[in-house]
């Protein structure tokens, strides 16, 4: 395998990891605040549809992005009302949101565009353009690092860089700010936060809101960056892989980057069986590669390789003592 192929694989790894990373960080905020969210998938899908639909009609991808975030936030609000306000079961609410998004997206797409549940293909300003980072071409001559910079780091849509920036930002917000400390506390021991006079409900809604925002960007990237338009069920389990990555990363931002890049690499390799065979010397079934993130997560969860301990108050609605 030559260096050019390797760069190609790294390039698609980064592309495929981006929606995972955004959704993974989204889940990180929510679960760190004690709200389980298995509705990441639905939020990504809703945002993907809304972004593509608005971008197709208005011709502006930025309007599309905002619309996608709006759709995702609406579902987040629903999750919040069900699981925080009415103290419903967070897992059931998440399941409902996944189906709601899957059904509504197709229904509305059919009603608006009449193309069998998809949006028209996006062209021109309807998609996020690929940005060339400064000096990408002039540095290409530098051996090894030059092509890496020009082909892998440079040449992605802006949302890829936004996703990467979200990692240090998430770390900073969660571990270096007062808000972050309280948010983590509310996921571990909400009663203590309540005693300190801070609103548990407010903090949890804030966390669920951030989760909606990030899922919105993930969905928008899926339909306007990675692809050119929305098709039925295009999230294809990414929300669940993000959930797997979150557990894999043990609810930590930097680890999340690593887990998402790893799962992105699996995705990139899935379409290049020739490369795997060249490197390993034997054939690996594509089906095994697509199942690998889930298998690894089960192994991690089972504590065979380092234990993943979720936030202690996760999944429990908070009831004030009277």
């Amino acid at each position, binding site marked *: 395998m030559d260096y050019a192929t390797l760069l190609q694989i790294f390039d698609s790894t980064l592309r495929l990891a981006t929606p995972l990373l955004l959704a993974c960080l989204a889940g990180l905020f929510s679960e760190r605040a004690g709200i389980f969210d*298995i509705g990441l998938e639905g939020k990504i899908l809703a945002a993907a549809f809304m972004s593509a639909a608005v971008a197709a009609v208005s011709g502006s991808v930025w309007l599309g992005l905002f619309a996608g975030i709006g759709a995702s936030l609406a579902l987040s609000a629903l999750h919040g009302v069900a699981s925080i306000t*009415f103290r*419903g*079961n967070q897992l059931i609410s998440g399941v409902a949101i996944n189906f709601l998004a*899957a059904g509504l997206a197709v229904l509305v797409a059919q009603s608006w565009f009449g193309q069998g549940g998809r949006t028209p293909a996006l062209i021109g300003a309807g998609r996020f353009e690929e940005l060339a980072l400064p000096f990408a071409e002039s540095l290409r001559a530098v051996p090894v690092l030059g092509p890496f910079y020009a082909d892998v780091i440079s040449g992605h849509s802006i949302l890829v860089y936004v996703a990467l920036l979200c990692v240090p930002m998430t770390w900073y917000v969660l571990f270096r700010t007062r808000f972050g400390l309280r948010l983590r506390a509310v996921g571990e021991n909400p009663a203590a936060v309540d005693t300190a006079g801070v609103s548990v409900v407010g903090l949890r809604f804030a966390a669920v809101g951030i989760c909606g925002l990030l899922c919105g960007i993930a969905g928008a990237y899926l339909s306007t960056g990675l692809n050119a338009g929305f098709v039925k069920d295009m999230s294809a389990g990414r929300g669940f892989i993000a959930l797997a990555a979150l557990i894999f990363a043990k609810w930590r931002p930097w680890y999340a980057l690593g887990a998402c890049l790893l799962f992105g690499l699996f995705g990139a390799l899935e379409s290049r069986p020739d490369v795997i065979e060249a490197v390993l010397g034997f054939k690996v079934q594509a089906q095994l590669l697509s199942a690998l993130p889930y298998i690894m997560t089960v192994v991690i969860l089972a504590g065979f390789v380092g234990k993943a301990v979720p936030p202690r108050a996760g999944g429990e609605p908070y009831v004030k003592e009277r």
Partner: protein
Amino acid sequence: MQAMPKWADIVLIPLINLLLAFLISGLVILAIGEDPVEAVSLMIDGALGSSYGWGFTLYYATNFIFTGLAVAVAFHAALFNIGGEGQAALGGLGVALVCLMLPWPHWTIALVAASFGAALFGALWAIVPAYLQAKRGSHIVITTIMFNFIAASLLNYVLVNLLRPAGQMDPASAKFPEPTHLPTISDILNGIGIPFAERTPANVTLIIALLACVAVYFLIWRTRFGYQLRAFGKSEQAAQYAGISSVKIIMITMAISGGLAGLMAINNVMGEAERLVLNSVEGAGFIGIAVALMGRSHPFGVLLASILFGFLYQGGAELALWTSIPRDLVIVIQALVILFTGALDGMVRAPVERMFLSFKKREG
């Protein structure tokens, strides 16, 4: 103190939840520019207006009874088995292996063997997450979700590489041999002189599904294990204090739950498709969640809810045929039923409870 009478808990609240879900579904139909009244009448006509429609409605209902019972049994032990989809897929593999590997003289014997195969494979696929929950403390919801995806990949591999006959393009097993074909409801009814539309998929599995409902009722309310299971579901600590082993409860409950989900395969794989295809479950595992929630985890409730969802499925297919409303409407309705009967239950319950309390005060 009981805040409200039992009938309100069992009948009134689910009814209000369901009405809310249907009301919003109606608004959705209005919002996409269609007429909800016409849609409903088309659905009723298509799903219940003829024996042809019933033949499909009952076929879908049979699937949902199995997956609904699977979720319901686990719910009683406070376990959320979201992996019915994967367990039913593995059940399909069990059925296919039984039907293809051995020569069967008659469908009755094949049915018994295939039922064992389906239940065994489904149960095995549920036992792994159960073990991990019981012994290693990993959350059963997450592991069962992961196992759904692993099952999909596994089946993809098995169908493409192992079970696909040479020279065939689509990833599916060979057709099952003639003696394993199950008689349909129409075969049975026409045989005793009652006219019923032919070429409908509802088959003899329906009877097994009804028996499963009865069996689950006895298991949960009439056996020692059922009592332990419910005690465990109410309070794990209290159950442990009473000497009930939580490992045993989790493992056996999940095995039964997975077995029930797996049994669905005798309906869709053996009874209808008569071969194993990719994605044979088609989301029925997830509908089991809606069915169990709506049926309040009681076998009779599950039966009623399954027929309702069978109606929605067949009605939705008719709707897609005659109008421009896609079949995905059913998924929206399913989502709203899960939302209102599951997650937003407290929203309805609190005001109703308050209403009953104010009645009581006036009387007292």
